[in-house]
């Protein structure tokens, strides 16, 4: 066991998959010599050589498009978008190519590429460096979308993503890259994509979140607990596929639900989660299912961020209102 940040855990996962599968290649902007602008791939080029871990020219569409071709030859590309806000330069490759090669070739070819990208706010960065648009990828048929919230999950889910046979958009909450450490196993292990994690069991209300917002959700859950509210906290971890049965089971037990996430509200992941609640637990509901999300605005520049990212206090406030409903 070793105490690791999420950056270290992901680095460790990358090292494991590069070691176990010689077809794995890792590339993107500043990924090689520099080890990534967040140092996620630090030391991997030294260890595995430039043929397997390398810098690409500055072109996201080129990065995603070449990965499709590499995959056709049997390679297993892990590519990095420096920030999720710049992944849109690659959008047509992702939505029209990466996600469709299997279907288009009727299973003859596949593009099981892992597309890593830091996402989310909270680091006081310029425009486009703070947004949470996972919903765009989750809405694309043929893509899996994973967002871990702990070093342990980040490692296990990334290993599963790389071992899997489908394309995965792996979004990393940059706000949590270094803010939490966790004792994790140094040896390989994997966590299957598509399984939510029940972080804490409770009976009064189900609080559902994932990724960056889990930080506030955890705090809120602790505070609520002290106020006598028994919170069941679920980290869905996988935005698509969504673990609908775990959500249903929990809400059937608690009868109340609040989902919290960072991106815009309209047509957001919250809507999908709450629809699941309606499908799975409608007759058990004791309060209207509720979402707390970002506004339908751009992720504001640093000075506006405080209005945009929900505080634990706000989450507790909403939990209380629902419990008292």
């Amino acid at each position, binding site marked *: 066991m070793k105490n690791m940040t999420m950056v270290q855990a992901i680095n460790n996962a990358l090292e494991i998959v590069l070691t176990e599968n010689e077809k794995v290649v890792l590339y993107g*902007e*500043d990924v090689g*010599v*520099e*080890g990534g*602008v967040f140092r996620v791939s630090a030391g991997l080029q030294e260890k595995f050589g430039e043929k397997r871990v390398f*810098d690409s*020219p*500055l*072109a*996201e*569409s*080129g990065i995603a498009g070449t990965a499709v071709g590499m995959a056709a030859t049997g390679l297993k590309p892990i590519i990095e978008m420096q920030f999720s*806000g*710049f992944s*849109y*330069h690659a959008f047509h490759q992702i939505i029209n190519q990466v996600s469709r090669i299997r279907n288009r070739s009727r299973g003859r070819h596949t593009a099981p590429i892992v597309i890593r990208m830091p996402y989310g706010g909270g680091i*006081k*960065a*310029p*425009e*486009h*460096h703070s947004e949470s648009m996972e919903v765009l990828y989750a809405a694309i048929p043929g893509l899996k979308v994973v967002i871990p919230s702990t070093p342990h999950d980040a490692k296990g889910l990334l290993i599963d993503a790389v071992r899997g046979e489908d394309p995965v958009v792996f979004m990393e909450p940059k706000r949590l890259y270094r803010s939490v450490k966790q004792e994790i196993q140094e040896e390989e292990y994997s966590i299957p994509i598509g399984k939510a994690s029940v972080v804490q069991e409770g009976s009064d209300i189900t609080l559902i979140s994932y990724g960056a917002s889990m930080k506030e959700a955890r705090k809120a859950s602790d505070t609520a607990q002290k106020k006598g509210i028994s919170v069941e906290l679920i980290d869905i971890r996988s935005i698509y596929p969504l673990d609908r049965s775990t959500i249903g089971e929990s809400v059937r037990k608690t009868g109340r639900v609040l989902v919290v996430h960072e991106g815009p*509200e*309209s047509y957001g992941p919250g809507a999908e989660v709450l629809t699941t609640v309606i499908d799975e637990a409608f007759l058990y509901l004791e309060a209207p299912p509720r979402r707390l999300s970002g*506004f*339908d*605005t*751009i992720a*504001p*520049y*640093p*000075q*506006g*961020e405080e*209005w*945009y990212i929900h505080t634990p*206090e*706000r989450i507790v*406030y909403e939990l209380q209102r629902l419990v008292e409903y």
Partner: protein
Amino acid sequence: MDIAAYDPLNETPYQILDAQGKVILDHWEQSLSDSELIEAFKNMLFVRQFDTMAISYQRQGRMYTYPPNLGQEALSVASGSVLQKTDWMVPSVREMGAWYMKGVSLKELFLYYRGHEIAQRFEQANRIMPITVPIASQIPHAAGVGYGIKFHGEKAVVLTFIGDGGTSEGDFHEALNFAAVWKVPLITVIQNNHYAISLPVHKQTASKTLAAKSLSYGMPGIRVDGNDYIAMHEVLSGSIDYARQGNGPVLIEALTYRRGAHTTSDDPKKYRTQEEEQEWEPKDPVNRLRSFLVHKNIWNPDEEAELIEGYRKEIDTQFLEAEQYPPHSLDDVFAYMFSELPPELEAQKQEYQDYLNATAQEPQK
């Protein structure tokens, strides 16, 4: 200067001054008056002060991430000086001198780097687009501005910037092609500062020069020493004349060096040597122009300290104004999304305001 006569494949940049500020050409007629040169030098000094002070404000925690301009001042000041009021500028992210000369105030720049969205109104500057962070996305806008200029029958030109790294993006290539096909008055300046964050330019392209990219689109291209103010000015003037006369777009590759870090959160030691950094020191644009002016006996470096003192006061005053600017409010988050707030946004704002009121937090304007 006949810009179309230059060979974009020529690796030797167009140059007037050597590293010591001496004229290298045998026959050269001074293309700028003494007073214009002195003005340019002062602007470069000013930009350098702004830049170093911005870095220290950032270090003091009074500003967020900032991209240093150190070593690239000649090309931005020259760009600022060649434009007329009716010309357009479409910015990239590292040519602050040019924006400033277009009328962007220091207070606005400081507000921008303090993370305040009001900054990019650029209240006193006309015909300038806001800064767009996704690399290369501005170049198609510039080609479109060029189309608009032609459409309206104006004699104006549009000047845009991009980095060496940015030339790898599809937007750059698409835009140059459009500009050439439509024959629009667009001048694209590539600031080849040799790095895109950690990636050296020789790993960015296998092309001998970046100016060479002009060949494939059918427009003149030229590589110029971007640290040589006079050469840069001549090339820009020649390109603008060419474009203004209706001949179509021009691509300029300005060779320079990013002497500082990529941004205040970057550490260049990870990817380049100190020897390399030192090699570029003598080619610094400020020192070169100063040496030229001193040789000509039209500049007394002893006067610089006082000048700089004055600049620093002015810059600090503007910074304090930015610092005292009313903070970003809840309203500001919503106000500019649409011409009128749709019901969804109205409701989201109200809900948040209700929460603030219910928990007795400061009501927001």
